[in-house]
């Protein structure tokens, strides 16, 4: 029997991903569905014990299937507050991380002495920041007063910013703005330590800018400022999107994420149904926000090919 070439190639494709398909079904899709089912259960139905969980599926859903969500948003004293805090923090820090990492990537892409060394230092957080080490060091440093962030922020005396804004007469927004600036400056440690991968990705994008574009710009006498807005930004714009998503996802697993901390707390209390409901609603909200932002950003993205 002869199978046509196209069909055969398709079969080969399935062959290549078959290992992954099995794994994903077992270790990802089924657990994902199960945890989705947990949200709609009463905790008593789950019967959590040392032997693991009682398997439950959607058909065992009771009358009160939205109870967990109702409790989370109406009765729980902490969840809604935590959620708002975390969403607000993410909304502020994500653009900050993006701007900061693009800025650093642009600098690290320039030619200067000791560039290799500087790059090595700036990528160091990639290696350390994901582990429990980050927790300990950020806690310890704050408690001993040797806070480099605080030391660094004296460089940008924030009071001056406040006064400048007041002087300019934008009283209404000045309070909020200086709050944001304050939080960013005092949090420079967190900012630097959480933008390692983003810098790496931006740097890769910057190096993909064709030499011809650079030459054309310099022939036309573009200033560095114009060059940034007309050449650099369009070329890295697809990566802004990727970095945005990465940053938001990364904030899920951060240890200072209040919502996730509460979810883990509840899991430790064996309250799995409620924990799952909290985690899923948080996840859903963030995904909706990310989806909207992605749609908006997508309009401004410049794709070189296609």
């Amino acid at each position, binding site marked *: 029997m002869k199978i046509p070439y196209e069909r055969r190639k398709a079969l080969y494709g399935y062959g290549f991903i078959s*290992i992954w398909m099995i*794994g994903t079904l077992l270790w990802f899709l*089924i657990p994902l569905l199960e945890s989705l089912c947990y949200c709609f259960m009463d905790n008593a139905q789950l019967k959590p014990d040392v032997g693991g969980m009682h398997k439950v599926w959607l058909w065992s859903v009771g009358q009160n299937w939205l109870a967990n969500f109702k409790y989370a948003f109406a009765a729980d004293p902490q969840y809604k507050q935590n959620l708002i805090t975390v969403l607000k923090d993410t909304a502020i820090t994500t653009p900050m991380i993006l701007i900061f990492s693009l800025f*650093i990537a642009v600098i690290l892409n320039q030619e200067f002495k000791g560039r290799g060394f500087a790059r090595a230092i700036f990528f160091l957080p990639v290696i350390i920041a994901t582990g429990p080490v980050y927790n300990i060091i950020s806690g310890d440093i704050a408690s001993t007063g040797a806070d480099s962030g605080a030391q660094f922020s004296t460089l940008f005396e924030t009071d001056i910013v406040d006064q400048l804004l007041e002087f300019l007469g934008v009283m209404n927004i000045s309070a909020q703005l200086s709050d944001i600036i304050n939080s960013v400056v005092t949090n420079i440690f967190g900012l630097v330590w959480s933008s390692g991968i983003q810098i790496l990705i931006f740097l890769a994008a910057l190096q993909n800018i064709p030499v011809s574009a650079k030459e054309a710009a310099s022939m036309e006498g573009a200033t560095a400022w114009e060059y940034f807005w007309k050449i650099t930004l369009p070329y890295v714009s697809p990566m802004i999107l990727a970095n945005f998503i990465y940053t938001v996802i990364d904030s899920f697993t951060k240890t200072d994420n209040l919502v996730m901390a509460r979810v883990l707390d509840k899991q430790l209390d064996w309250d799995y149904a409620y924990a799952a409901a909290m985690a899923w609603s948080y996840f859903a909200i963030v995904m909706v926000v990310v989806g909207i932002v992605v749609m908006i950003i997508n309009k401004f993205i410049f794709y070189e090919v296609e």
Partner: protein
Amino acid sequence: MDLENKLNPEAAEEAAPLREKSGRPAHPQLPEGYIPPSAVPDVHEAHDVGEGMSKKEAMKIRMQSMNKQEIAYLRRKQIFEKCWPVFRFLILFGLGFVILTPLMFMISYGFRENTDMNDPTIIWIPRHLTLRIMKQTINAMGLTQTKNNPLINTLVLNIGCSLCQVVTCALTGYGFARFRFKGRNLLFGIVILMILVPTQIISIPLYSTFRNFLFGHVNLIDNKLVMYLPALTANGIRAGLMIFIFRQFFRGLPKELEDAAYLDGCGPLMTFLRVMVPNAGSSFLTVFLFSIVWYWNDYYVASSFFTNTKTISLVLKNLDGTLNIAIFNNANANVSAREKIVWLEAGCLISITPMLILYALLQKHFTEGIERSGIVG
């Protein structure tokens, strides 16, 4: 004659008569690689101007022929080029300091006596240098045990899982990159979902899956298989990201490579092994290194599925408690919370040292690998 013709006298001789006839070089008859002289900047004249003059004077003469705008542009550019390196240095130095602080902190704290913590005059340079704290921390972390040694556990798990994961993720990524099949986009959507969904959401159902593996006949909890099995099936830590990277990378390789192999009668798997893998060497190394780092730093998965098996990050996470039992519980100890930091920092230093060494040795592959591996594009 021009620079070109000096380099390539034969071509010049051939080209010269043609140019005289038609006024411009006749391209089709010229040898390959020949650049018409008109495309080459006139080096000759510039030399004449610059001869015997300092750069400044040459610049002055050149500026005479410019209009005001051009001069202003040049001035601005000059000023910018002078000032910017200073600013750049300040920025990089300040931020580099912020990044390096914790490291200096660890080194400074890890080698001092705990009593140094109570001396307000000591910030960075310890007064009493000692290895005692280091030794105590190493003992408390169990790094001297012969059985269930966290370091050996972690190393074996790390390298084993990373190897498995790199191989399976590469296969999957290649499948997604080069073959068209029904439902490919849907399946790739699942890969994206794997990147997006945080582990915390699926950890509990996953626990019961492992606890009642094979329909409740096998209990895999605290078995190292809980790490190996997902890694073997391309579902380990951050596998989604790795599949994504490999797919992007393989998509970037020229298709002709494989077509040639197919024509020579190579099967798809052989083509992958013989043609694609050798080309993807640097990409493999990068992903492998990142995988090692991620496994090394992971404590959430390990703490969910391990009870007695210890890994470095787990030990570090619980170091506070372990130290309380091992050292501070002693009636003579009398250690304040502030002094405890010394032990914790020593623990941090111990647990990141292997990664730092790896990074120092293979820094190029960490940073340049990602650029080449085609995360972009």
